[in-house]
């Protein structure tokens, strides 16, 4: 089933610019972890180092270790592609493939990664769409373009697409920031359901959302102007929001800065 993630001493760079520094944390399987913090403090950057998406950007590199169940994702000879199959990602803006139908979008990860029988793909598409709470809305128009859905539906389509390849971990970078409250609620409910199958990490600017959905919360902040971002505090969500140990955390969640 899901596996533990252990990060130790992780730095990430964009060219010469160091975006995050010395991040260490442990994320337990089948939990939801929220990353909060002011804009530009490196939450997205850190999230993208977890499935080796960071290095897709020209000039970007990573130092340090990310262990998935004891195995270093940045170890020599590790295929980034295989890492990304185990650790899926949902982006801030819904990005269904515009040339593909709803069905093809969900099947994309399976199809693009090799041959599977039609009936097998059919089954996975259905369970994934059901898993993303989208099945009832689209079951009659699976052949229609995915870009023709509403923003919230598109985002759930992207979630279905990500879980169709059966990852261990699901990374979500502000998945609700482009959505209305009802779609947001649908996705939050969905996360609570998905928790039994996946380990979920979510970046959010919405304090209530972090408090509602997550088990643990990490607060990121810049060490200073022009300095790299760091994890200031990580703890059980209930503690972070009621009794944080750091002054900066308290200031941030009570809205005194950021």
């Amino acid at each position: 089933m899901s596996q533990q993630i252990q990060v130790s001493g992780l730095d990430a760079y964009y060219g010469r610019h160091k975006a995050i520094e010395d991040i260490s944390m442990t994320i337990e399987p089948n939990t939801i972890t929220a990353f909060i913090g002011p804009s530009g403090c490196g939450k997205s950057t850190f999230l993208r180092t977890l499935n080796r998406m960071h290095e897709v950007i020209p000039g970007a590199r990573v130092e340090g270790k990310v262990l998935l169940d004891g195995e270093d994702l940045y170890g020599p000879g590790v295929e980034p592609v295989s890492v990304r199959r185990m650790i899926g990602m949902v982006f801030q803006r819904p990005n269904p493939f515009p040339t593909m139908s709803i069905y093809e979008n969900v099947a994309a990860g399976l199809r693009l990664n090799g041959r599977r029988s039609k009936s097998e793909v059919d089954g996975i598409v259905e369970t994934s769409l059901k898993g993303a709470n989208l099945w009832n809305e689209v079951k009659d128009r699976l052949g229609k373009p995915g870009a023709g859905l509403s923003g919230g539906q598109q985002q759930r389509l992207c979630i279905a697409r990500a879980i169709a390849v059966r990852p261990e971990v699901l990374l979500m970078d502000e998945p609700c920031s482009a959505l209305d409250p009802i779609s947001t609620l649908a996705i939050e409910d969905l996360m609570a359901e998905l928790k039994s199958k996946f380990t979920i990490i979510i970046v959010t600017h919405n304090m209530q959302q972090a408090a509602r959905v997550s088990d643990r919360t990490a607060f990121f902040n810049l060490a200073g102007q022009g300095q790299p971002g760091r994890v200031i505090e990580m703890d059980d969500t209930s503690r972070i929001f009621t009794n944080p140990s750091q002054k900066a955390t308290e200031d941030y969640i009570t809205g005194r800065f950021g």
Partner: protein
Amino acid sequence: MTTHTIRRVSAARRLKDRLVQTLVYLAFAVAVIPLISVLWLVIKNGLARFDLDFLTHSMRGIGARDVGGGAYHAILGTLEQVLLASLISVPIGLLTAIYLVEYGRGGRLSRAISFFVDVMTGIPSVVAGLFVLAFWVLALGMPFSGFAGALALSILMMPTVVRSTEEMLLLVPNDLREASYALGVPKWRTIVKVVLPTAFTGIVTGVMLAIARVAGETAPLMLTVFFTDSINSDPFSGPQMGLPLYVFDQARRPTDIAIDRAWTGALTLILIVMLLNLVARLIAWWRSPARGR
């Protein structure tokens, strides 16, 4: 203290608006008049000989003063030459554009390639013909042939294909590439299955424009495929004909009959290019996502 009030559009502004509008319409008319008059002339003069005879017969054994004769040999030649030129330049152009956008990323090699593509864009067509004549025909001792013409045409097509494809690939949002990578899809599959299909319609349009451009080239053909009045369906050996050459050849003959044939040849050429465009549009429509299969 200034207060904001809702004002009526002043007469001066309305006048200016009218003036600019008129100018824009005028500019449009100036741009369209030559196009329409060329089409009109070609259709008016070309229809006289646009018959089955013209489309199915060559000029073999037909002198300048003889009626009849056709452009079958030239149509066949043009289609073969353009097809061969496309077969050479489209794959190379596509792969070059993919390299430039997806792999090169402004590195030294990609900047060098970009520079040479720009230089190639500026090559006059007659120079491309001369190059093939000097290199392929004279230095290597190959015969004049449709293929030699196709080589010259492909030199002219390639930069257009590269540039238009490059632009279309750059239009594909990076989000889509990242979405694909995040599913664990390798880069090359992402390019083949996500990037190219997304840019497909634009690429086809670009290729069609490139084809349309070279289909009417005369100078490079003169130096490479030579002339013939007979049907030669083998583009790899012996002189062929092409429609632009046919028009050129007939137009300089001293009789009205030949001049009529030249007009009809021009009409046929325009029709072929329009037909190709139509086919491209059909392909694009058939592949477009909005159709919702």
